Every structure is written in C-alpha cells, then in structure tokens.
C-alpha cells in the first residue's frame, strides 16, 4: 500500500516537473488519423497520448492507446516513436507493440499543395487496437475475438501526405500503403481532413478560452482494399468531427467522435488526445 502511494507520489512529481517546463503554446495536430505538412519545430519534443474507445455490439468494449513521442530533428524532418497498448473489458490489458515513423518535407517552401513523405515501421501484434490508421479490409470483425497476441505484425507503412493552408483553413489528404513483411499483399487506405481555428486573429489579452485557441474540423478515413481486391468492397469508413483546444503554454486537448459509415465499420468510436510539447529539449538537457 505504502509502495503504491510512493509510486503515485513519484508519478505526480514527474508530471509536475514536466508541466513546469515551458511549452509551445500550440502543440501539433488537430487530427487523429490524418497528417498535415506541419512538422515539429527542430529541437522540440512532443509527448502525446491518443486513445480510442469502441463498443462493438458483438464484442467487448475496448480502449486502445498510443503514447507518442515526436521529435523535430530538422525543420524538414520529424521522427516519432509510438508505444501501443489496449484494454478490453472482461478480458485483459496488454502492450501491443511499437511504431517508428519518419516524415520528410521535400519542398522547403510553402506551395498550394505541400507534399510530405512518410515511412513507418511497425512491430505490433494482433491484439493492437490503437486504430491509428484504417487500411485494406480492416473492420469491426477484427475486434470481436478475444485478445490474442500470437500473431506478430512487422509492417512497413508508406504515406503520401498532401496538405494546403488557405485563408485559415487547413486541408490535408493522405494516401496510405501498408505491407506486412511476412508476405501479405500491399494494403491501401485514405484519410482526408479539414480544419480551421475559430478565430484567425489573436486576441491582444492573455486568455485561456479565446476563440483562437479552439480549432474545429472533420476527418474522413477508411480502407481501400489490397493489391488483389482494390476498392471499397469489404472495407470500413469513418466520418469524424474533431475539436482541439490549445491551452496557452500548456497541453493541447483534442476529441473526436467518429461515426462508422457502413456495416464493416464500428458504429461509434470516441477518440481523445492530449499532447504536451517541450521546447528545445536538447538545449535544456545540456543546461543551456
């Protein structure tokens, strides 16, 4: 009991320590699935937790979680590590693997459409429920069996990210191709998103609940089959409004209720995220 209290106290001290470090006012990411061309600022480290809750009718409710550490290596290169886990009601809580991803911006100026190249390696197992992307014939049927970690998935995922900013709006499109290196065919998916801050100009006063700190948007994402059965047949699709609240010099909270658009989809998914960015983390470690 005493040991648990000590652990809790230690955790609280760690959290307080992290929150004491000044952070960027607006951490990355208004979306949960779709990527934009906005990269992490060089030297900044962002911690984020992205979770998704689902309630499949014929299965147990689940809570998938991904802890994300995103580092800005260069202005044009961002690297990320994800640690995935999940909890399924009446079953168990399991660690399900990790993902390493890199995003590179080949064009170093703003254009109407800004491309970003994305490469990810995943080492996850069949119990993973983080739902960070939907590809191939992914669907609700994958979530009905009991937690089973027996199948290892070592996958490579490639994305072409196209993103534009226009009059305060962001429009992003992602094309995804994913391959299990055990020999499965390439699987494909898509994500499209749009968002805008509630106010384009900043308020002159310090305020937490100013309109400029809220961003509203929507995402549409789903699978497109695989190399041998490309198309919409037997795939799942979701439409999800998104809302993000950027607490000045603090964390960013985001929420997104997603509605499944066909029978293969989950009827409803609730996503929640919190992100906190530490500025110039290497300089801080060096004591500069």
């Amino acid at each position, binding site marked *: 009991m005493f040991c648990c209290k000590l652990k809790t106290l230690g955790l609280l001290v760690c959290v307080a320590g992290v929150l004491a470090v000044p952070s*960027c006012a607006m951490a990355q990411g208004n979306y949960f699935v779709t990527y934009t061309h906005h990269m992490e600022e060089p030297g900044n480290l962002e911690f984020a937790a992205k979770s998704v809750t689902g309630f499949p009718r014929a299965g147990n409710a689940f809570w998938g979680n991904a802890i994300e550490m995103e580092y800005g290596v260069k*202005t*044009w290169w961002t690297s990320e590590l994800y640690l995935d886990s999940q909890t399924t009601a009446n079953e168990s809580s399991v660690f399900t693997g990790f993902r390493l991803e890199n995003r590179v911006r080949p064009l170093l*100026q703003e254009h109407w459409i800004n491309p970003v190249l994305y490469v990810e390696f995943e080492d996850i197992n069949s119990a993973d429920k983080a739902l960070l992307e939907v590809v191939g014939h992914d669907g609700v049927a994958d979530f009905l069996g009991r937690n089973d970690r027996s199948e290892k998935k070592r996958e490579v995922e490639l994305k072409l990210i196209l993103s534009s900013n226009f*009059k*305060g709006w962001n429009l992003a499109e992602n094309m995804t191709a994913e391959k299990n290196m055990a020999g499965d065919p390439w699987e494909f998916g898509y994500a499209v998103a749009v968002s805008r801050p509630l106010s*384009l100009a900043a308020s*002159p*006063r310090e305020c937490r609940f100013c309109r400029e700190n809220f961003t509203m948007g929507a995402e549409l994402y789903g699978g497109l089959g695989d190399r041998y059965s490309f198309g919409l047949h037997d795939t799942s699709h979701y439409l999800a409004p998104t809302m993000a609240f950027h607490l000045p010099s603090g964390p960013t909270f985001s929420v997104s209720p997603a509605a499944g658009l066909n029978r293969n989809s989950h009827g409803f998914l609730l996503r929640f995220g919190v992100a906190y960015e530490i500025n110039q983390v290497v300089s801080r470690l060096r004591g500069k």
Partner: protein
Amino acid sequence: MRSRKTPLLMILTFILGASLLFAAAGDGLWMTKVPDKQRSRDNPFDGRADAIAAGAKLFRQNCATCHGGEATGMENRPSLHSERIRAATPGELEWLLKNGSMKNGMPSWSRLPEQQRWQIVAFLKSLQ
C-alpha cells in the same frame, strides 16, 4: 586513373558549392526569394496597438524559446533587433514567417493563420 578522380572532384565541388550556398542562405539569402508582389504588401494591422499586443503574445508563445523573450537571440539564433529586420518590408517578414528558412533552422509558421503572422510582424516592427 583520370576517370576515378573525376567523380571525386565532382563530389568535392558539389559539397563546397552546397556549403557556400548554405552559408550564403544564412546571410539573408531568403530575402532574394521573396516575390515582388509579396514584398510590397502592407501590413493590414500596421501601427495598431491591439495588433502589437497580440503579436507580442504570439511571439512569447511561439518564437521566444529560440529568439529569446526580448528577441535578442539565443545561442546561434539571431537577434531580431537587427538592421536586416529593420530594413525588411512587412511583406518580406510575413513571407519569412510563412515559408521559414528551413535550411537555416527557421521553421515555417504556416500553421499560424495569416492574420496572426501579420500581428507578429506588427510586433517585430515595433521593436525597431
């Protein structure tokens, strides 16, 4: 023998050329890339006290960790109380915020809406 040396010379020339180009870019080369139309744009918030206050707030939130709270620069990040910033037009500064100077470590701030970039420009000009 000659054919072996030629690729090596080409690589060395490329590295030297790229280094010179990057060094030049750190010396304000970005200003030469600003389109004329953008260069002559006026700041819609020019001289407005509320815009300067909002720009100061945005500067503290987004820029101060690299350029310092007083915009005097930190480590190898430049001071913004400089002749170059003084001489730059508002349009040039807004272009720099939007596009960054990525080869030199200045990120693009295109994720900030244009109005907020202009507010930061109003603040930067008030420093001079």
